[in-house]
């Protein structure tokens, strides 16, 4: 706000002078055809000094204000009860790990709401598995880059319950545009329930045993993990509770059975450039796998 008001004030003053000068000193036909040149003025040390010193003073003021913000943000006091989440950027999805709770999920980040009386911030430890990414949820905080071989930190502190949207803000490859972020700020009770649910192993519903077999006998398992099964791949998102998510394809489409089926058939239908290959399953197998994944609430 300080910055905005200062720059707006400078703009109004300088643009005002410019407009005044253009009107006041335009060449008039009555002047004759440039017969008479205006008085030639070469400079003035006093005036030039004044428009050097005043900007320097403004810069000093802005700089001091900025420095205070930088240090209070980056060196903020960390409460003992803060939640830790490790964020790993992948082409083109987000992996979220909760080391204090043994929870791993993807693309939809759940955090507790924090309030001023009982601050409960979430500290994000960030890195990347492949190229540079940037975590940006405008209404929660500024962005922070996720860079391979480098660990960055940031914290968020949502004060209101609800869904916060964001997306990757550093060009990371073909499908950078659909690397969306959804942050759910839950009440502490909802959050505890969610965590408890996420810690359970995957649902094993005998009704979809056929789809389960298709999944376990295809290349799916080399990239995806479903806890409690032979699927232990780490390249793609953890699918243990994929049925409980509201979206698929890192937030780009709602998680409905038809969308899921179309995505498995060929991920490029929603996300051209996604690294998951088309699975070349026949129609029957597609239905079966879709039914299986839908039960993984």
């Amino acid at each position: 706000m300080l910055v905005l008001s200062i720059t707006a004030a400078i703009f109004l003053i300088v643009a005002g002078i410019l407009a005044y000068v253009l009107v006041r000193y335009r060449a008039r036909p009555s002047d004759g055809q440039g017969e008479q040149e205006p008085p030639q003025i070469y400079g003035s040390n006093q005036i030039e000094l004044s428009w050097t010193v005043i900007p320097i003073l403004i810069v000093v003021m802005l700089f001091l204000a900025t420095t205070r913000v930088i240090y209070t943000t980056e060196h903020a006091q960390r409460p003992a009860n803060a939640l830790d989440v490790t964020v790993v950027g992948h082409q083109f999805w987000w992996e979220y790990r909760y080391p204090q709770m043994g929870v791993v999920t993807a693309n939809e980040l759940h955090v507790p709401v924090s309030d001023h009386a009982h601050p409960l911030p979430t500290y994000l430890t960030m890195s990347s598995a492949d190229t540079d990414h940037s975590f940006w949820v405008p209404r929660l905080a500024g962005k922070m880059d996720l860079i391979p071989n480098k660990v960055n930190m940031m914290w968020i502190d949502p004060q209101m319950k609800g869904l916060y949207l964001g997306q990757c803000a550093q060009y990371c490859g073909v499908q950078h545009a659909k690397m969306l972020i959804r942050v759910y700020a839950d009440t502490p009770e909802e959050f505890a329930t969610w965590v408890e649910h996420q810690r359970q192993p995957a649902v094993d519903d005998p009704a979809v045993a056929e789809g389960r077999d298709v999944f376990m006998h295809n290349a799916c398992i080399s990239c995806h993990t479903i806890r409690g099964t032979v699927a232990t791949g780490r390249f793609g998102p953890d699918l243990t509770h994929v049925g409980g998510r509201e979206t698929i394809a890192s937030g780009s489409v709602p998680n409905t059975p038809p969308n899921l089926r179309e995505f498995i058939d060929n991920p490029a239908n929603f996300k051209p450039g996604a690294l998951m290959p088309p699975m070349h399953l026949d129609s029957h197998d597609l239905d079966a796998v879709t039914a299986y994944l839908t039960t993984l609430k």
Partner: protein
Amino acid sequence: MATQIPVNELHDQRVHAPRRLWLEVLHGWVTTVDHKKIGLMYIGYALFFLVIAGFEALLMRVQLAIPNNHFVSPEVFNGLFTMHGTTMVFFVGMPILFGFGNYLIPLMIGARDMAFPRLNAFSFWISAFAGFLLYFSYIGGSGLYGASSAPDVGWFAYAPLTARVFSPGHSTDYWTLALLLSGIGSIGTALNIVATIICMRCPGMKMSRLPLLPWIYLVMSGLTFVAIGPLTAAQIMLMLDRYVGSHFFDTQAGGSAVLWMHFFWIFGHPEVYILVLPAFAFANEIIPVFSRKAIFGYPAMVAASVGIGFISLSVWAHHMFTVGLGPGGNTFFTLATMIISVPTGIKIFNWLATLWGGKIQFTASMMFAIGFLFQFLIAGLTGIMLSVAPFDWQLGSSYFVVAHFHYVLVGGILFMLFSAFYYWYPKMSGRMLSERLGKWHFWLFVIGFHLTFDLMHVPGLLGMPRRIYTYEADRGWMIWNVLISSGAIIQTVATLLFVYNMVWSYFKGPIAGPDPWDAWTLEWSTPSPPPSYNFAEIPTVASRRPLWDLKHPEDPDSDYEIEQGAPPEPKEEGA
């Protein structure tokens, strides 16, 4: 010592020149070492790429006009923004500014050619080759995951996206080699400009009498020396990573992605000033002439230019506020970036003071210069906002940044380039550009520009990141993008009008004569276009405005130079 400018015989060379075969004409252009012809080739080549890169921008704006559009695929879009950025910086901005410098500097300092004419031709041809090499990648190389057929890693090509594992084809190699070669050309021309300005000035032209355009080109060339080196080094390291198995930027093997960012931006930010300083240089020549007054505060203008040159070498990491440099680094680069607004502010105030008390003539050239002044003011102010590191945590890499730097590059540099075209085209071609078309061009371009780039700040504030080929419908960004894209179409129409004006005026424009603007620097003492030897006899100057001295023998500038830098006489502001 009085100003002496021997009069050349004035005639329109094109009328008297004997007819030649087109092959002879072509041979003449290819083998020329004349600074004027090389300058014109630089400009023509840059205009060619301006049209191409502008067309790329237009395609991107069509794609982004509505959410989830399928006009182009993400692979093609990524290629478009990479090529648009790379082309505009290296094959439009640099060559067109070097072209004007090449053409004007020897004429303005009373020399017959550049210091090294053959190096000059070499620099041009190697830069030209680099441009075509870059575009050959559309045929020659595939990009990310073998997907597209042009460089698609972004114009700053952050590691490790450029590693072979992510970009297996040859498109990144074309990009690397094109930048490497164009860098060699830039160094050659910068060297030539420095040597010419230091060694070839006519008698009487002390450094304190050097017109501001060559002065600023001197600073710009110095910056080029410093800036191109790291870029070239980084390109070589990248090639080693890709083909020899080194691991400078290869994060999979312990390399550093941040190292590439430092290398790139220690080139990249001075590069911005390499591009914008010549725009200041044009403004310093054009604004005084159309205000009918001497430039206000010449020594301060020189000092501010040199100051900008030095400070611009220490601001590069403001492109990296979200990388996690820590509070110390962020604070330092915030301060360095804010300080650069002081010399820039001095320039703006001095231009205003030059206008103050003048008799302003609203020619097309002057209108573009005033547009530059106004828009550069806004660009500078959003620049101050972006120098504040926490502001970048929110708005870095968003459309706010895209709007800011296009304000500088289009609203500042391109407007000033148009101004320079209207001002010097008569000198280069011997014909005036149509003022009527020029004013149409100005107003259309102003409307299109503000529609596009004023509104572009808004989706940035609403959270729209740059470099996305499409966006979701529920974010409320669509209305802004529709308006932005329609502005792009108006700008395209205006630019076509300008191109038409140049072609039409070349054949049908009124004959310019040597000095159509009643100006004061030496290039206007030669015929239009100047003969290949420029000056039949080398002139002698006694002040900063030799032609003023000749036109106003009763009140020559040289009378005021007894005390350097001091105000010549007491005066009342606003009197």
